[in-house]
């Protein structure tokens, strides 16, 4: 365990510093262009997730590439510097970089054309030849431009101003973070109660079910290793829900180790419920099992290196719960979701034991705790007297004082 901790910690440091030296090479001087699109406004340093510049007047500026890197035109993303007001109106626009065919899109870059986006509300439709002018022979590029502006400004507005523009984003923001806080408090309270009385263990199942519904389906934001990366890269989101999820997870880590995994994680919950189906489990020798459990630390080290070197958290994402609950992924990630769900029939909490980067993260940060000897119905299939990093604190086997 100590070796793993040292390995991961040094990976963080090396990747972080190496990445720092690798990055600045082709950085666009956004500060310079800020003065161009909003000459009279003083902006803060870039911060938050997605990254943006704040100002006293309430105007927010951002590089669209930080927000929606995946929207591409004919040849890659169109990077824009945008500024929007707290009323959700576009106040400044500038194309920083693109790889479209110059002679098709030269008009798109001109102030006469871009100027038409100024004063538009981010709630507008941004449809070509309706509320956005098309350019002959540059249709693909213009569509990408309009989509980049629309999506990135909506995401930023919802993060910074709490503005809800997407049609499907049901529920107000207060409701969201309060509901997560409730479900967390429920788990924490019953965590301590079940340490005293085994009769209350059934409550954990209710909590897990609620976690699937609320954290998973309603909020679609289970705790992800990407949260940690954004924190390390100093790109915290200003959304309250994000802060609540981060803070509660860290608090629980200090007081109750992998409480999140055992009580809150919606993917863990589904895995555990599937694992309870009456199917004979594979019998895997303890040594083999132990060896494979180390895999998640190696994977964590790999994605730490990838993300901190590239400064792109999305590169390190293979988490099944992100795919499943955001309903967003490619064939490969969906395949992984399917496999890791079905595998639970034969091996309890397959994903949590061998692959999950959050499990690795919470595992190495779990403090020593007495009273968890494991037993035959351990939801993690832990061996007797397991390492505390493998314990998800379901309290079934708890033998403590009281």
């Amino acid at each position, binding site marked *: 365990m100590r070796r793993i901790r040292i390995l991961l910690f040094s990976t963080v440091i090396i990747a972080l510093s190496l990445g720092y030296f690798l990055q600045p090479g082709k950085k666009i001087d956004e500060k310079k262009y800020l003065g161009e699109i909003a000459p009279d406004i003083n902006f803060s340093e870039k911060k938050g997730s997605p990254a943006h510049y704040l100002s006293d007047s309430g105007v927010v500026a951002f590089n669209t590439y930080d927000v929606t890197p995946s929207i*591409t035109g004919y*040849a*890659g993303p169109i990077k824009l510097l945008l500024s929007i007001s707290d009323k959700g109106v576009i106040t400044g626009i500038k194309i920083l970089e693109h790889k479209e065919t110059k002679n098709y899109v030269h008009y798109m870059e001109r102030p006469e054309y871009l100027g038409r986006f100024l004063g538009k509300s981010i709630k507008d439709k941004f449809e070509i030849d309706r509320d956005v002018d098309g350019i002959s022979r540059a249709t693909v590029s213009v569509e990408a431009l309009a989509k980049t502006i629309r999506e990135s400004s909506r995401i930023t507005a919802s993060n910074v101003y709490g503005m809800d523009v997407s049609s499907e984003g049901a529920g107000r923001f207060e409701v969201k973070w309060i509901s997560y806080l409730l479900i967390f408090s429920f788990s924490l309270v019953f965590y301590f109660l079940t340490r005293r009385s085994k009769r209350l263990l059934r409550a954990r199942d209710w909590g897990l079910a609620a976690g699937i519904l609320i954290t998973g389906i309603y909020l679609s934001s289970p705790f992800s290793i990407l949260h940690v990366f954004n924190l390390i890269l100093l790109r915290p989101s200003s959304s309250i829900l994000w802060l609540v999820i981060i803070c509660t997870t860290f608090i629980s880590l200090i007081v109750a180790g992998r409480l999140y995994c055992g009580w809150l994680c919606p993917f863990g919950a589904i895995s555990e419920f599937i694992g309870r189906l009456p199917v004979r489990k*594979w*019998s*895997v*020798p303890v040594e*083999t099992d132990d060896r*494979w459990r180390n*895999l998640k630390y190696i*994977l964590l080290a*790999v*994605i730490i290196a*990838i993300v901190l070197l*590239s400064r792109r958290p*999305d*590169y*390190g*994402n*293979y988490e099944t719960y992100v795919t499943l609950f955001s309903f967003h992924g*490619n064939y*490969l*990630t969906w*395949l*992984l979701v399917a*496999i*890791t769900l079905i*595998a639970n029939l*034969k*091996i309890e909490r*397959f994903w949590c034991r*061998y*692959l999950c980067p959050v499990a690795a993260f919470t595992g190495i940060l779990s403090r020593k705790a007495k009273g968890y000897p494991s037993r035959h119905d351990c939801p993690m299939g832990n061996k007797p007297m397991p390492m505390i990093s493998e314990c998800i604190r379901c309290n079934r086997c708890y033998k403590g004082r009281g």
Partner: protein
Amino acid sequence: MTDIRKFRLLAILTTILVVLILSYNIFGEYFMAEIGGYLQRRIYYERTISKKGLSLHKGMYWKEKE
């Protein structure tokens, strides 16, 4: 097959899958744009353009890039 062999197989498979996902994350943008675009163009050419009996007459006024 014994349980342990099945387990090893599954574990190795999922590990490969994770590695694939990570490489796709990183190289997907370039890979898809380059190879995917090429395949798309090539398939369109072979299936549609070349069957139409159009000419392949060497053009005037062009140069190699790079």
